[in-house]
């Protein structure tokens, strides 16, 4: 295992290219990028620009065609599926645009699931889930099923689920994309609070306002390449331009 990231980097991509079909235009071409601990980075770009591909590579959900991906000090582009799954369970939390909650599990069981898959003890997992449910204002809904919750509540459940294993890195793919404006702001505030607590966060979003309001740095992807970086905005503590 090679650790090519600089001290303090949670994510480092070097010359990453991703091509889905041989001969086709690459979804990502020679992308290099790093994200520091406790930084909030927004990844923006038009549809089909490659930002979700970038997120998938960082999360270990997919492998690059070439280049290296190092996350939380581990080179993940060379890991097998099993090791990648373990890596995701321990180091990465993922929040999806459409929540991706399991409809036939209660709120509590949804939140517990990643801890159970990671092999956490029942007591420790339950304690952590209880803590998160209280923190995210979901305590009274612990036995409810996702279908009974509002969009904002569902996204908060998804955030609790992503945090249950205390990951170093939280990835959010259009976290407010399926929510109305007010609820979107509510979720934005919540993410910011998490970052205030030291949580590293990568946001994929179409929403410039969300990026501007909550991200310390925005990376623009156009046609699979990193466009010229935008100026850093005054953001949360720990941000690095």
């Amino acid at each position, binding site marked *: 295992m090679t650790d090519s990231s600089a001290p303090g980097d949670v994510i480092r991509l070097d010359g990453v290219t991703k091509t889905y079909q041989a001969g086709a235009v690459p979804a990502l071409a020679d992308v290099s990028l790093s994200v520091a601990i406790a930084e909030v980075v927004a990844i923006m770009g038009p549809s089909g620009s490659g930002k979700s591909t970038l997120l998938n590579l960082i999360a270990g959900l997919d492998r690059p065609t070439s280049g290296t991906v190092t996350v939380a000090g581990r080179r993940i582009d060379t890991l097998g599926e099993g090791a990648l799954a*373990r890596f*995701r369970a321990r180091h990465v939390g993922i929040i999806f645009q459409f929540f991706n909650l399991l409809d036939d599990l209660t709120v509590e*069981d949804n939140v517990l699931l990643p801890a159970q898959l990671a092999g956490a003890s029942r007591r420790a997992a339950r304690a952590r889930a209880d803590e998160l449910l209280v923190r995210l204002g979901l305590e009274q809904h612990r036995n409810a099923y996702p279908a009974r919750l509002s969009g904002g509540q569902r996204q908060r459940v998804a955030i609790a689920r992503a945090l249950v294993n205390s990951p170093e890195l939280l990835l959010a793919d259009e976290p407010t994309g399926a929510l109305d404006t007010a609820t979107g702001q509510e979720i934005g505030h919540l993410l910011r609070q998490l970052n205030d607590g030291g949580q590293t966060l990568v946001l994929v979003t179409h929403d410039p306002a969300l990026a501007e309001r909550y991200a310390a740095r925005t990376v623009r992807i156009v046609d699979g390449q990193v466009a010229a970086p935008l100026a850093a905005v005054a953001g949360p503590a720990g941000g690095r331009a």
Partner: protein
Amino acid sequence: MSWLGAVRTAAGGLLRHKVQAVVIGLVLLVSTASATLGLALLATSSAPFNHAFGVQRGADVTVTVDAARASPAELAATRHLAGVTAAAGPFASSTVQVQSGGQPFGQFTLAGRASPGGPVDDVVLTAGHWPNGPGQVVMDTGGAQPGGGLQLGSTLTVTGLPRTAALTVVGFGNSITDTADGWVTPAEIARLRGPGAPASAQLLYRFTQAASFAQIRTDVAEVTRALPAGTVTGAASWLAAADQAEGNGAIMEPFVVAFALIGLAMAVLIVGNVVSGAVVAGYKRIGVLKSVGLSPAQVMVVYLSRVGWPALAGCLAGVVLGNVLAVPVLQGSARAYGVGSQQAPWWASVLALAGMLALTALAALGPALRAGRLSATEAIAAGRAPRPGRGYMVHRVAARLRLPRPIGLGLAAPTARPARTMVTLAAIAFGATAVIFAFGLHSSLNRAAQSQNLSSTVPVQLQPFGPGPGTGPQTPSAAQDAAATAALRAQPGTLHDVPVYLNQVKVPGIAGSANAWVFGGDAGWTGYGIIAGRWYDAPGQVDVNTAFLDQSGLTVGGTATVNTGTAQVTVRIAGEVFDPGSQAELFGSAQTLPGVATAANLQQYDVGLRPGTSVTAYVQALNARLGSNSRWQATTPDDGNFYSIASDLVGLLALMVAVAAGLGVLNTVLMTTRDRVHELGVFKALGMRPGQVLTMVVCWIAGPAVVAAAIAAPAAVALNTATVRAMAGTAHTGVPASFTQVFPPSRLVLLSLAALVIAVGGALLPASWAARARPAVALRAE
């Protein structure tokens, strides 16, 4: 869109769902092969006899009368009795002892007939000519008489007469109902009767009702009542001849039919499941097809074609496989039992093909109609996700169980699609039933084989086939018999030995002759399977087989009059023993059946060994002791071709059904993984490892498999009992209770694991595909 376009669309769907197409094809291959084989066995077991019986106007009953007790007018009057549709005779007859080449050749019933034809029992002359003078005989080729090797011109010597008579074989004929062993001119019979022998004659009848032994007994009673008392001395029915002609293909029918029915039911379930799964999975596609202009009828065609092509391919391959399987089975059966060559009839293939295609069309029609009726918007909106809200309670309970989470998630999953789960459960249950049933039937057949061949109690026999002077089974000399007895007694390892004599005897009501097996000592240790009663233990008692009881109308505890050729004795039937077949057999001591235990009738020595004695070493040592010139040779009993053929066939059919069930599971799991591919992506994104995915997916089917096992175990026990009894019924024998008691609880539990093996075996492939799928790809799926 044109109809051609619809078919092209279906072909496109087919190529995108290769696994489903392969599953449909293979399931129908297996089912059609079973059906073809079953139909072939059914047809070949009964068709040739039935055809010949009709053409040759076979006799339903051959009544033997003492012509001295009734006038010709009284005998002729029986032609007009109620229920008689045709009659022939009386033909004078005589039962004689015959020698050929100086060796005993058996006991034969000869009838005097002026010509082979007539309104009943048209004897087909297969070689030579009909007797037209004294000293000529036509021998029957259809019966199961001992001996053989006769040719035109061979001479038979009739013994036991004041003046020995010689008969020259001038022809061979076939009486479909074995009314006699040979035919001579009517005038010849008087010369063949011993002094004081009754003036026997045959009356041949066809009746309106003669389908069972009971009906035939009623018919015979009617004739008996119409004649003076004591006139009727015996009667033989067509049923015994039919059994002999049909051979053992008929015995296999019950289990082949059982497997074929299981195969058919599974084919309907699995094809229905595949098609409805295709409709459900393709809701969105249906919506799109309709929105671009396909009519409901064209949508139906798309979905029927998607099933139709692989179904047709599977059915055609199944017909070929069924015929290929039928060839060795039928040939083996024919060879083993000398019923001539047998071939699967063409209509069995056509019927199996048409039947399976019709069943497939029926199974596919419902889902295809549903696909046709869905509106475009309904279909697109319905998508392919299972309806939410099902199985909440099960998931909640599973989450609380102290099980690894993937197992809990897997066990709760079947509640999402209860109908699909039920169909899959039924397919597993059918497959497991077939496997458990096959093991049970194999055990039952083993017990039957051991009981029939006595291989566990009589592991060694001495038979007169040693390399002495001459060829063939000639009678050993008295000195050789004595030497054999001495060698047996002197050979270490001998626990029991008994000489066994065989001759044919006449018993009223039994077709032709009954085989009398007479033991020259204690034979209680030989271990014949007792169906009812007990082994004889006193003079005057005999045991008989089921055919004897059926044909004679006697029961255990009753008495029978046995004519051994030298004496007529009355014996009490002590028990019914397992000895299948339509040949009547009785077993008794030399005291009970006088005249049978002669040197000429000595058939073999049965030998029991001390525990721990090696059979092979014993046989070698005994043969060495007997010497190279002895006609007696130690050997091990034949294991029996029929049981070997049947066991192989059972194994093959069970394997085919189990594979079909496994394919059904594979299809279900595959459809479910497609339904849930996005959910699988979520699990993977949350950290579920490939091994955990594999475990979860296999557990989707584990719950239904456990339920299927609980259903399959008792079903297989019941099916085995019913099948063994049906087979025994076809072989005209009862069965000892031990033949069906082959499932001790521990074994049944172990065999029930077959359901889990089928389920896991079927689920592993799609589960491993699911485990290997890239999470990003799965998450992108709709």
